[in-house]
């Protein structure tokens, strides 16, 4: 969660320097879809934070008499292959999956955006070096990186986040650089530069607000991708370790029982879907609310 909070806060700050914060908030609030998305994200975050209070059962308590029972009044989402309550696992899984999504994207944006900004703004040799590194990283397959990292750190959810974050970084560099180049052709940036404004000032005041919309869009999509990437890493034994749940690992173990117990795959799948959708709706709302050209 923190990434989006940080991000939007940063965005709001940047926007506030040009237009009142209140205007952005009002714009955002006038979009029902965005507000709905925010509410859903907030609900999931609340579920993740208050998991011990809201989950009806212990997510790792097994019961050999309740194996793969279909949804019922006692177990709204049924039980899994170890007789564990699926609803409780979805709630607790929100922690792992949201963290995997958000923290890895936070890592990627924190590292990627400044690099992209630098690359696009400075140009020349800096741009070339960063560009080569990004190309090399994007070309090297994700799994090699993930397995190599596991060698150092050992398999865990935290290391999976680092691995996903690192592999997601180059695309942020790319997007930030592209948007920077684009922004620099704008008249007011050109004007600011022509007037001899300090490059850092230009970057912060004129370029940064311009690159926010594409970064927002990319970040929301990347969170979705990261949640699914965590699922793939769980499959390799590099993600959340059993018995603790994440939506990804739940989907992986559900794979074996798709025809016998479809609810095992449906509910974590729906949770992923809802969260991804909501992040995107929020991202959209933010984009419109912060669009510097719409002021």
């Amino acid at each position: 969660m923190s990434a989006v909070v940080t991000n939007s806060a940063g965005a709001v700050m940047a926007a506030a320097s040009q237009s009142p914060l209140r205007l952005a908030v009002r714009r955002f609030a006038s979009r029902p879809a965005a507000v709905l998305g925010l509410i859903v994200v907030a609900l999931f975050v609340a579920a993740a934070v208050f998991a011990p209070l809201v989950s009806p059962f212990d997510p790792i308590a097994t019961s050999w008499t309740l194996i793969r029972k279909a949804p019922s009044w006692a177990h709204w989402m049924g039980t899994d292959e170890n007789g564990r309550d699926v609803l409780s696992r979805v709630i607790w899984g929100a922690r792992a999956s949201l963290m995997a999504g958000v923290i890895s994207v936070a890592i990627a944006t924190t590292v990627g955006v400044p690099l992209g900004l630098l690359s696009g703004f400075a140009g020349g040799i800096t741009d070339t070096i960063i560009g080569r590194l990004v190309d090399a990283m994007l070309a090297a397959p994700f799994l090699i990186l993930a397995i190599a990292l596991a060698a150092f750190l050992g398999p865990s959810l935290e290391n999976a986040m680092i691995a996903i974050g690192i592999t997601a970084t180059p695309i942020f560099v790319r997007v930030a650089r592209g948007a920077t180049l684009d922004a620099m052709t704008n008249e007011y940036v050109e004007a600011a530069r022509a007037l001899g404004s300090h490059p850092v000032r230009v970057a912060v005041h004129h370029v940064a607000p311009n690159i926010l919309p594409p970064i927002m869009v990319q970040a929301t999509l990347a969170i979705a991708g990261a949640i699914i990437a965590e699922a793939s890493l769980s499959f390799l034994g590099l993600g959340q370790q059993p018995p603790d749940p994440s939506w990804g690992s739940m989907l992986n173990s559900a794979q074996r029982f798709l025809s016998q117990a479809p609810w095992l795959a449906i509910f974590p799948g729906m949770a992923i879907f809802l969260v991804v959708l909501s992040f995107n709706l929020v991202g959209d709302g933010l984009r419109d609310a912060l669009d510097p050209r719409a002021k």
Partner: protein
Amino acid sequence: MRNLLMATLAALPLSVSALALITPPAHAQDAPTQTLRIALREDADMLDPTLARTYVGRIVFAGLCDKLFDIDAKLNVVPQLATSYEWTDPKTLVIKLRDGVTFQDGEKLDAEAVKYSLMRHLTMPGSSRRSEISSMQSVEVVDPLTIKIQLKAPNSPFLAALTDRAGMIVAPKVAEKEGKNFGLHPVCAGPYKFTERVSQDRIVLDRYPGYWNAANQHFARVIYQPIVDASIRVANLRAGAIDLSEQIVPSDVDTVKQDPKLQLVISPGLGYNSINFNLASGPRANTPLGQNALVRKAFELAIDRQALVQVVYNGMYPVTAQAVPSASPYYAPDVKPPARDVAKAKALLAQAHVKTPVVVHLMTPNSPDVQQLAVVMQSMAAEAGFDIKIDSTEFATSLGAADRGDFEAFLIGWSGRSDPDGNLYSFLHTGAPLNYAHYSNKEVDAWLDEARAATDVAARRTIYGKIAAQEEADLPIMYLYSATNIVGMTKKLSGFQPVADGMIRLTGMKLAK
């Protein structure tokens, strides 16, 4: 009845000519035209019997490369390329070869060829066969159809090795020319010859009309396709895209059963699944579990194997407390898994003066079913005072970790061998390569060597019984369950003979139109 007849005929060389009288010769106008499509759980490795190491590779070899001997459903050694054998003394094995056998390039298979192959298995650098036949001293060609093998010391499992890849005979000229690239175009003496391989996609074998038992081969072509996902193998089977799939997983058994077009063949296997405890390999052996047999015993008593297998595998795999499969004449019937007893487990932990919960890091492969196995054990063991931490680890990593001793407990399976020596020696003997735990018991070492040297079945059975009992007391390895071979196939397919090694023997198999 017919299947039975064919199997008997396949095993008995003398009857082949008799069969030819009943069935019209296969190379006549009605040569088989059908294709058999077989799904494998993964892609095979090198198709060179000397260098090959995967289980699925053995399944392909069952169609490609005949062996000196085979095993039957009762694990007896039966003739294949050899017609008979005799131990003239405990160190000398004389093998008579089948007459008129040719390799798939038309070259004659004779004693020289057999000698060449055996020496290749033994001496080629990187040979995966070396340890299986390392007791071999020399091979002598007596006459074109007789070889004499001299062993360094009496070794009864040696014969069993010749029923697997070490007994496969390769075409010497081709092998000599190709060297280590032989596996790219293998030429053997099996019923189907190598045609094409697209890695990770298919291995295509075509009928070899000159095969010594060609009359019992009913396919023009056999295609092996790796399909990694178990449920997708079943989907392919149901859609009719394949005819036979090895390794149907228990959770898919009902799906196959309910399909009117499909049949299942379930038979006991040779392998097992077990937990290896690190007793003395490196610093990670310094755990209560590694240092105290009482703690290991408590761990065993905390686990209800039957319930475990019931939950994870629908009860389809038989539980066990020994490495020898129940189908083997060397199975020790009185070594049985103890019933779960949490109170006793707690008492043992108290007696051992360990602090509870005893933390156990369990390294497991990362397949979902094995992870479930670990989770179920975690929950069972928790009641007795064990805190199992699951380290699910990808295969190559776990191999390295096991070798270095970088584990506390390791959940791992073994594909199994027909001779008990293959399931025990390398795991339990001091300094043996698969003895990851560094278990060392002088008595067990002596028994293992003694059982190797003994030739009498009854004598060996007594020794293996002692080993099983001692092992259950020391508990370096806690066996969980024995493997079961579950093969799914279309009902049109007949003549499949299940043998414990899980191989798909094509002889006698037939597809109805």
